[in-house]
């Protein structure tokens, strides 16, 4: 059987666009080409109507008011707009932001920019399971704190933070709570109002919608939150985000949200069973560890370290057939091990040995069976090649070896 299979287990990077979403988008390229801001003719009215409907679909997914949805170009822009927008809007109240070490770069780099412009940022540590310590959060809040920004679910491990508890703390202290919910929305039930989240970034292309469109949820009631626009122009999106709306993208985002609302729970149940099968299958290999909290975790993700095997090399054994991500090269050309895994206390050696598998709506059981076999074969191949695996097997304490770091 030399048929070449290509299996996609990198759904946390991006998801395929659901064909139903593509169908919904198509008319908005040629037949209905209007600018949603054109008020003077039917082309514009049709586009505006389509955007309004999509805004309702997206709002319904997170149980929000459509007026609380600001369309953006994606989660990175939403993170930037949320954090910088709050920092500028609430400058008179304080300049301190609290976040975590394991956020996405869109949050971490934005926070660094704020530090350079005179703001103060506290980066909370996470425990070995990837979750923050609530007492540390409480202790970090000062009278200068204007924002707590903590991701809903981690992109590398799928670990879900104690969102309701964090929301309660923020409410008690009167601090705004923002969340990068990019990996959670559309996959698990996410309700910012019930959770006490006031600002929330998410995107279409992680939930089977097109790339290039995302949203920022901004609470309008209890409290009414405002963010300072980061782009100047025509004053679209209630003045918070100027720029001609990406009508086909927004229509697709809306359709993706509608499908997610209807199918999320059945998808999640099916995928968690497949994920567990994959995880259990791979953990039959010796010296194999699952990273992160297994109870509070996204249903479709597993992050596994194969000790004494380097992740990028391992990936090369099967990447002609299976697409995954490695914790050792998550930022493409960078040779640093994953900062998320390092923040969880994994040694650099285990962090270099990790692979993230993220399943999706179109993953089949056959895919998982194939992956278990191919990855196991790859791990065994790499271990046959690995001098440290040989040393481990000979009973040498690898910590006693004097390595020539380079």
């Amino acid at each position: 059987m030399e048929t070449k299979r290509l299996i996609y287990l990198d759904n946390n990077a991006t998801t395929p666009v659901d064909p139903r979403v593509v169908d919904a988008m198509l008319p908005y390229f040629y037949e209905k080409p209007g600018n949603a801001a054109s008020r003077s003719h039917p082309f514009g009215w049709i586009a505006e109507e389509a955007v309004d409907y999509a805004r309702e679909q997206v709002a319904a997914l997170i149980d929000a008011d459509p007026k609380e949805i600001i369309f953006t170009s994606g989660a990175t822009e939403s993170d930037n707009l949320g954090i910088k927008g709050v920092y500028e809007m609430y400058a008179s109240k304080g300049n301190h932001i609290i976040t975590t070490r394991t956020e996405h770069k869109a949050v971490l780099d934005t926070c660094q920019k704020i530090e350079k412009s005179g703001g103060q940022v506290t980066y909370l540590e996470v425990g070995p399971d990837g979750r923050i310590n609530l007492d540390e959060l409480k202790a970090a809040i000062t009278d200068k704190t204007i924002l707590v920004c903590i991701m809903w679910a981690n992109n590398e491990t799928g670990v879900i933070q104690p969102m309701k508890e964090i929301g309660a703390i923020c409410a008690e202290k009167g601090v705004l709570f923002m969340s990068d919910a990019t990996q959670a929305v559309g996959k698990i039930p996410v309700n910012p109002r019930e959770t006490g989240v006031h600002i929330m970034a998410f995107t279409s292309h992680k939930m089977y919608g097109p790339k290039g469109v995302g949203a920022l949820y901004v609470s309008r009631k209890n409290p009414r939150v405002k963010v300072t626009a980061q782009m100047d122009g025509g004053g679209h999106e209630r003045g918070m985000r100027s720029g001609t709306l990406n009508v086909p993208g927004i229509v697709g985002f809306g359709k993706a949200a509608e499908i997610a609302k209807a199918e999320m729970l059945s998808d999640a149940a099916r995928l968690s069973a497949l994920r567990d099968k994959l995880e259990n299958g791979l953990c039959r290999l010796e010296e194999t560890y699952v990273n992160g909290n297994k109870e509070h975790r996204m249903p479709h993700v597993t992050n596994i370290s194969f000790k004494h095997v380097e992740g990028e090399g391992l990936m090369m054994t099967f990447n002609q057939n299976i697409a995954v991500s490695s914790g050792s090269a998550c930022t493409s050309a960078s040779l640093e091990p994953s900062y998320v895994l390092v923040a969880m206390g994994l040694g650099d050696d285990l962090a270099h040995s990790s692979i993230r598998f993220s399943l999706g709506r179109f993953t089949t059981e056959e895919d998982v069976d194939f992956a278990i076999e191919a990855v196991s074969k790859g791990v065994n191949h790499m271990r046959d090649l690995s001098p440290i695996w040989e040393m481990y097997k000979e009973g040498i304490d690898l910590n006693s070896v004097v390595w020539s770091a380079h």
Partner: protein
Amino acid sequence: MAYSEKVLDHFQHPKNVGTLDKSKKNVGTGLVGAPECGDVMRLQIEVDEVSGIITDAKFKTFGCGSAIASSSLATEWLKGKSIDEALTIDNMDIVEELALPPVKIHCSVLAEDAIKSAISDYRKKNGLEVEAPQLENQA
């Protein structure tokens, strides 16, 4: 990042994987790199004591595809060379042969270090280290 055909070939069909008996006097072992850095190479040579020619070379590497290809290539090049010839192998020769991209040049450096380290170990074991150049200097 796509790998070159040569890297892929060495990665899929690595040459000279294995272990030589390091207790033998004519075997030199070099172990370079560190697990925390994401690559460790162990390169071994077996030398004919009469002729000074490297008769066998083996490696094991923990690392990415380029690291494995670099060490596989190094063992191929070492066999049949004299110690002095082996010392002239430069990391840039490996870069060129395997068409390594800039981010993977460190893999070739590690392979050169592994060669030098294996030779140094062999020389130490056989009392050839340090004395030889000193004698030359005195002459």
